[in-house]
């Protein structure tokens, strides 16, 4: 009896927390489709706001996607070898490097962006291009790829596989691409999804680094929250959620598969 009343209490508590998380999101979705939020749903539902938002802000969506993909590629190129090195070295230097790698995430994004701006801001073409924002995103998302890949590499008994390949005459680079990388596919995939999700939602760094020509989705959102109608801001948020939620679902599915693989 006591046990089930505790269960009910905890369930109610958790449902309350869920409501707290969910209700504003639902309100925002509804507001993006309502003709006039001030009046309420009785004023009718419409896609007008979404059309208006798309006409005004679609470049931000494309730029964000472009940045996310470019970020994922860059982070893979420098992160997977780094993860390999960290797992192999496993000494003082690798631990120091791990510390260094996590710092851009632990320290306030605004500080990192300010530092970048003050140091590289004088290179006009670089500063006004989307590459400037890309640098910030790569710094911020690197640990989120390296950590999962390291975890997977440690599980896969790589030394044994590599020794086998080495004894068959494969050089270090060939070993890396034909033995190490294929075995970490799941970890790389999970990391890439995380990086893409983070890059799409990154604001703190991007706000300082952007120019009116290089506006990303979150920057556009901030603009619309400050200055545009509630309905437009909500429609814009709706578009953002439509982009992010499938990624999150995929991420959760992959992580679940990874952890199941671990228990095998």
């Amino acid at each position, binding site marked *: 009896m006591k046990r089930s009343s505790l269960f009910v209490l905890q369930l109610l508590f958790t449902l309350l927390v869920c409501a707290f998380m969910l209700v504003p999101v639902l309100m925002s979705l509804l507001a993006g489709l309502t003709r006039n939020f001030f009046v309420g749903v009785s004023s009718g539902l419409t896609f007008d706001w979404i059309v208006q938002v798309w006409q005004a802000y679609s470049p931000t969506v494309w730029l964000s996607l*472009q940045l996310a993909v470019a970020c994922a590629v860059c982070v893979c190129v420098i992160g997977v070898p780094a993860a390999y090195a960290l797992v192999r070295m496993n000494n003082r230097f690798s631990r120091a490097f791990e510390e260094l790698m996590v710092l851009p995430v632990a320290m306030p994004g605004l500080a990192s962006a300010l530092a970048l701006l003050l140091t590289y801001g004088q290179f*006009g*073409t670089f500063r*006004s291009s989307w590459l400037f924002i890309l640098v910030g995103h790569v710094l911020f998302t690197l640990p989120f790829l390296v950590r999962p890949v390291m975890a997977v590499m440690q599980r896969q008994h790589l030394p044994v596989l590599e020794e086998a390949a080495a004894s068959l005459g494969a050089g270090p680079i060939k070993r890396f691409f034909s033995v190490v990388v294929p075995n970490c596919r799941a970890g790389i995939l999970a990391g890439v999804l995380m990086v893409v999700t983070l890059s799409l939602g990154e604001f703190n760094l991007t706000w300082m680094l952007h120019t*009116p*020509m290089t506006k990303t989705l979150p920057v556009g959102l901030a603009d619309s929250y400050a*200055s*545009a109608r509630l309905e437009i801001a909500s429609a814009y948020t709706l578009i953002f959620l439509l982009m992010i939620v499938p990624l999150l679902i995929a991420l959760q599915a992959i992580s679940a598969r990874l952890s199941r693989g671990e228990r095998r």
Partner: protein
Amino acid sequence: MRALSKTLAALALCGMASLAQAADSAICYNCPPDWADWGTQLKAIAASTGVQVPLDNKNSGQSLAQLVAEKAAPVADVVYYGVTFGLQAQKAGVVEGYKPKAWDQIPAGLKDPAGHWFAIHSGTLGIMVNVDALGGLPVPQSWADLLKPQYKGMVGYLDPSSAFVGYVSAVAINRAMGGDLDNFAPAIDYFQKLAKNAPIVPKQTAYARVLSGELPILVDYDFNAYRARYKDNANVAFVIPQEGSISVPYVMSLVANAPHRANGEKVLDFVLSDEGQALWAKAYLRPVRPMKMPAEVAAQFLPDSDYARAGVVDYEKMAAVQEAFAARYLNEVK
């Protein structure tokens, strides 16, 4: 795997291409679509000159600070801000002289002789009210009305230390309460009293929030209020307070060492051209070039007797005392 790398390569190429595409654009700091109908103006600029200008929501103060921060490698080509910021920008050396095509038609007091800044239009400050959102309360008619507890949480004004319209509010209120540009004590006193009424103090244009009812009462210009009422069909009223108010010009400048100088010049020429100035008139601003306002637009303004309560101030002096006032406001008004 092959297909993936091909797609990625294509995307990267697109990225490189977008770097080059900047040719037909100009960056304007402080061209918010919902302010003074810049949205329509930007579209007209693109249609007429082919120059794409992205919208930007920075306010005057943020624009100036950004220009100063980027002095070594400017990002913007043109900037739009209040007259006092234009004077400060000239002092800071971040703008350069340019005399657009209709230069001679701008009255003498509204431009820098060397072309570092020039007015493009002006407006009168007052109180913009979303009548529906008041919930039955009477529309405030004076600055003193805003202090009444019945409007608690409903009053907004832009940040006087950052936005030009905020500073203008402070100067107007100061003048209405008996102070002048040497003595801001009445304004500080007023803001301290207003702080007890839970005001909302945004940094950037809050036009849309007034329309949606989130911010029922906003200290803003007549052109924004008229546009809300007649273009966006919101039940918005504009009041020039009983104690008095002021009219001020907004100016534009060409940024020194602008990355797209030629495009910037085209933009500046357009906003002063016949077409550009007519667009400002239709948006309920008073164009700087002497031109007849369309009759139906003039009819929608408040009567001249109301506008008699709005005066002008010395812009040079206003610019000179701005920074001291901003510091005082930040320190004393919490």
